């Protein structure tokens, strides 16, 4: 079965790119969320199928790190790859400390995104 991914980003443009990149590579984008609140709702809803979350850290309700905490506290087995623009080293460091599995900086190369996600999924032991 293909892996299920939730894409969290407040930019529709960025979500569209990520969805296309992931779907082309055979992943299933199970849902998209544009705010921290929606992201948490979506994680709860899809907790049985969800394998990985790509999480933008700068969200409208200013809650990227809170979302990350909430996921890692309640579903430690779910992989989270944070996606953030260059120049945000502090927040990325914080995210990695909280338990993010990897990070990607925007703008990204499509191949790089897939490489990181593939590696995280193989390490996190989300098996077929």
């Amino acid at each position: 079965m293909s892996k299920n991914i939730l894409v969290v980003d407040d930019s529709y443009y960025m979500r569209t790119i990520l969805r296309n990149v992931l779907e082309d590579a055979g992943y299933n984008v199970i849902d998209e969320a544009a705010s921290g609140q929606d992201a948490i709702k979506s994680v709860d809803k899809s907790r049985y199928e969800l394998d990985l979350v790509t999480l933008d850290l700068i969200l409208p309700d200013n809650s990227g790190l809170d979302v990350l905490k909430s996921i890692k506290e309640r579903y430690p087995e779910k992989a989270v790859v944070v996606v953030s623009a260059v120049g945000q080293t502090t927040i990325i460091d914080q995210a990695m400390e909280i338990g993010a599995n990897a990070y990607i900086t925007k703008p990204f190369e499509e191949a790089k995104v897939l490489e990181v996600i593939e590696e995280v999924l193989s390490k996190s032991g989300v098996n077929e």
Partner: protein
Amino acid sequence: MNDRDKEYRVIFLAEAQQSYDQISTDIVKLEKDPGNEEILDEIFRLLHNMKANAATMDLHAIAELSHCLENVFSSIRAGNLVFEGNRVNLIFKAIDYLGYLINNIAKPQRQVHNEELLNDLNDLVTKGEVSAGLLQENSSSFISKKLHLSDSVSIPVRKLDDLLNLVGELIISRDHLINFAELSENQQMKNITQSLSRIADSIQETVMTARLVTVSSLFNKFPKVVRDIASDEKKKVDLSITGADTTIDRNVLKLISDIMVHLIRNAIIHGIENPKERIKKGKPEEGSVEISATSEKGLVFISITDDGGGIDTKAIKDKAIKNGILSSSRARGLGERETLGLLFVPGFSMAERVTEYAGRGVGLDIVKSVIDSIGGDLRIESKVGKGTQFIMSLPISMAVKAALLFKVNENNFALPLLNIHVVLTVSNGMIHNVGEVLVLEHKDEMIELIYLHDFLFKEMDYSSHINLKREVMDVIVVWYNNKKYGLVVDQLLRQQEIMIKPLQNPLDDNTLFSGITLLGSGEVCYVLDVAGTSKAYEQKENKVQLH
């Protein structure tokens, strides 16, 4: 630029214009309330997105300017800088220039860095002050005098769903009113009703159109799918796509995307022969898969055609007999088309080998049931040695459908037009009892009849030995699982747009009906489900045979 790049550009531009408008509004608010953290956070977030998105689009002037502005707002947020004095003017100018760049993304010659502006913004962050230079100019050449408003807005699909449901309610109310007006003597009332009715029709049409997307957003993914599967299978496959600009409801497209991939995989893995075999058969070495979409009368037809080995109907019959799905006597009377329909019976799979892509238990029965769930239809045509074609007929919209209304035993029923092949008026003499089955002879074809009056209302003891009292009967011919059935109704009423509401407890596990709808007269009308009805009929037929 390919389709996808074009799509990205349109989305980028719409979002960038929206963000720019929001930033412009926000900084005006911020000028009055410089310490407002909420506004600062929002400006920072919007600039942050703009920077990343523009960089992805290779729009470096926008990315660089957003980056410098982001740094400025980052300093303000951190309390290192106060939003006041000539800094405000500089930031306003910078945001104006950002707007100018966004509104000119189609003109590469205008995508230039404004070095002075960037230097001033950097000074602001590092020194906390601006040198006078740029600020003394009263007018700037780059500020457009025209206001640019984005031509598109983005709406969550959920809102469009709500809107469509409301349109359904509107149509029911409209029908009530039409009914009422017909009984009334008041000419003015009739006129107003007519005009309201026209408006309701236009609203429905407009809302439906708003939900339509082109199938290209899905079809664009297929070249890669085909290439990957063909290369795994060591086959050569040429894919041709026609009608990619056909439009369909976004939810319908979403539902059929997995189905289409499944059918394409089937075509390549089980249909198209390997190059050696093809050459031996005198076919071109490269196999062909054709995907085509067309629309007609509110329906969308999507076909997937391959020029592979085709499906051997004899093998299907043998397997069906072996699995106990079919008796051998019944198998003899089964035509090619009906035999192919057996592939849709749950659990029936012709795949002889398991590969990575197919044969994992997801058979055509699943494909068929997904299409049934949206009231669509799937048909197969196949010729041994020549190839196979799957044809999906899909509703353009899921909630409101054109339907044919009829009466059986004084009750109202509706059948979506999508499921109807043809409506016939037949005389008693054209109907025969063949074995246990009632059959209509029509254009050299034998169509099994379901006498709805007895089938629906004498459920316990339905048999085909029914008493055909009338000389002339109306028969609605429907397709299901590649087989035609004739539904004998008491009286045909009219064609009408209906909104289907799901059945409520305790009827909700009834498979004969897909829902109910309310008629203008306030009467309830049951929407007959072709899949459920024909399945129930086949089960009863089997029972009859066992006796």
